[in-house]
């Protein structure tokens, strides 16, 4: 994330709109993706993530607006573009009885430029002992790893990953995240969509939040949190009868909510947590529990849209 970088963005989307009949899937969507970053388009199901991604991949044509990927028009120069990008589609399948190595071998034959070593790729993705297995007999995580392999076979400059970890168990999910970071380390740009805020937070350099087909905000996860959810929360438990009054007296504190012995203290500013700790020690308040609740993208989403991403 070098702010001095002057190179042209890898992906430029400006003002695209796409409707299906009367439904507006995507409207006035604009953003840029920089070279070498992991960019995430996040939002609930049906927000327009896949439509946006498929317009950028050249699979769909937007009704309005313009897109440029690696300097190419994705719709008019789709074959040129497909040589240089790697794609993983949401909920895609392969032939039930195609073997892992056959799929990799087929994909390798489809590109004009020399593909990378398929066997090594299978090794890196932990699929070597599955190379003779049929697609239908792979687990969800193995299928996704195969799709990653297919997306990387042509050594692409930009990799598109649509809802890569949906339906995977947490362990498989973490393994996939590691792989995606590995893709960035090879100097490639990654564009992904997800409705998992944790995934976006852990993986993405920058995210765009999309809802009802419109982009609400774009930034690094940290800056989004700082901008939209500057408040910090300390949750603690104490039996000290004077505690409530003392906490209320701290200048940075905005609210103190008490439920039995449990306190939830909200405040903002850099010094808030320090001040709370200071108050505890100064007044010798004994606590039996002390936790900081740091807002995350989930909270940002809630704040911006008024509902949770899972609703």
């Amino acid at each position, binding site marked *: 994330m070098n702010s001095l970088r002057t190179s042209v963005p890898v992906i430029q989307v400006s003002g695209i709109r796409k409707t299906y009949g009367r439904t507006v899937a995507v409207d006035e969507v604009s953003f840029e993706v920089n070279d070498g970053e992991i960019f995430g388009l996040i939002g609930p199901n049906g927000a327009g993530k896949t439509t946006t991604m498929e317009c950028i*991949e050249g*699979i769909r044509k937007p009704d309005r607006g313009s897109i440029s990927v690696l300097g190419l028009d994705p719709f008019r120069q789709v*074959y040129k573009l*497909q*040589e240089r990008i790697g*794609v993983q*589609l949401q*909920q*895609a*399948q*392969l*032939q*039930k*009885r*195609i073997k892992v190595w*056959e799929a990799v*071998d*087929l*994909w390798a*034959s*489809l*590109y*004009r430029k020399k593909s990378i070593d398929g066997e090594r790729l299978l090794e890196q993705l932990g699929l070597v002992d599955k190379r003779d297995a*049929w697609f239908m007999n792979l687990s969800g995580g193995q299928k996704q790893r195969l799709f990653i392999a297919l997306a990387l076979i042509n050594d692409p400059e930009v990799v598109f990953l649509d809802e890569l970890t949906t339906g995977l168990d947490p362990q498989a999910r973490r393994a996939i995240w590691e792989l995606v970071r590995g893709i960035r380390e090879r100097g490639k740009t990654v564009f992904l969509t997800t409705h998992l805020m944790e995934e976006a937070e852990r993986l993405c350099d920058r995210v765009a939040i999309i809802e009802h087909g419109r982009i609400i905000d774009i930034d690094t996860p940290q800056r989004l949190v700082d901008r939209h959810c500057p408040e910090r929360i300390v949750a603690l438990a104490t039996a000290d009868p004077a505690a409530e009054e003392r906490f209320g007296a701290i200048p940075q504190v905005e609210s103190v909510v008490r439920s039995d012995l449990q306190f939830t203290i909200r405040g903002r500013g850099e010094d808030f947590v320090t001040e709370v700790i200071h108050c505890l020690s100064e007044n010798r308040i004994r606590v039996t529990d002390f936790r900081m609740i740091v807002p995350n993208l989930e909270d940002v989403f809630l704040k911006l849209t008024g509902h949770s991403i899972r609703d």
Partner: protein
Amino acid sequence: MMLRGLWKLTWIEIKVFMREPLGAFGTIGFPVLVFLVVGRAAGRNVAAPSLAASGFLRVGLPVLASLLIAVSSVLSLVTIISIYREGGILKRLRATPLRPQTILSAQVIVKLMLTAATLGLMVLAGKRYYPISVHVPLFGFTIALLISTLSILSVGFLIASIVPTARFAQPIGAAILYPMIAVSGLFTPVNSMPPVLQAVARVLPMTYAVSLMEGIWKGDAWWPHMGDVAALAVVFVICTALSAKVFRWE
């Protein structure tokens, strides 16, 4: 370059098809079985072969079996296309530099090869088990069958373009294709059908396929059948053009 992709995809499709538990038997075995079972039954019933029975054994049944070969190839194509569409396989293949026509051509080539292979099997089985020996210009007949299949495949493509889900693909395809055989002139000459059926028969590819295959089987030259070939080509062009318009990739 694209030829390499076409060849690879075709080869993989053949392998995938052969791995299917019922795929090979259902498509290859069924027409051959019909040919042999009906052939033996008919052969046994006519101790002193009447002219009609012998005509049926000599021409009718082999052509019927060949037509069944074509139809089961087409049904298999319709099913595969709709399964691939439903599973997102078509879309996934399309997101590569493969041209759409390459993806679909591979399927057609597989089905044509399958048709030829089944015909070969039928001829071999016929030599051994068929009640009477039949001599035909085999190369010419293979070509006639492939031309017919290609034309019927284009009808299959049109069906595959419109069927809503994979579950309906096979029954809808069967419901359209099998009745076409009934009015193809194979059982009753087209000229002796009621006028309405005659009109129907004249627009269906099966009718020309039967006329072409019967003719070549009996040893006719090609030129009197150029009308049949032309009709099959017209059906192919129309259906292909229509499917190109309405084909859904997902």
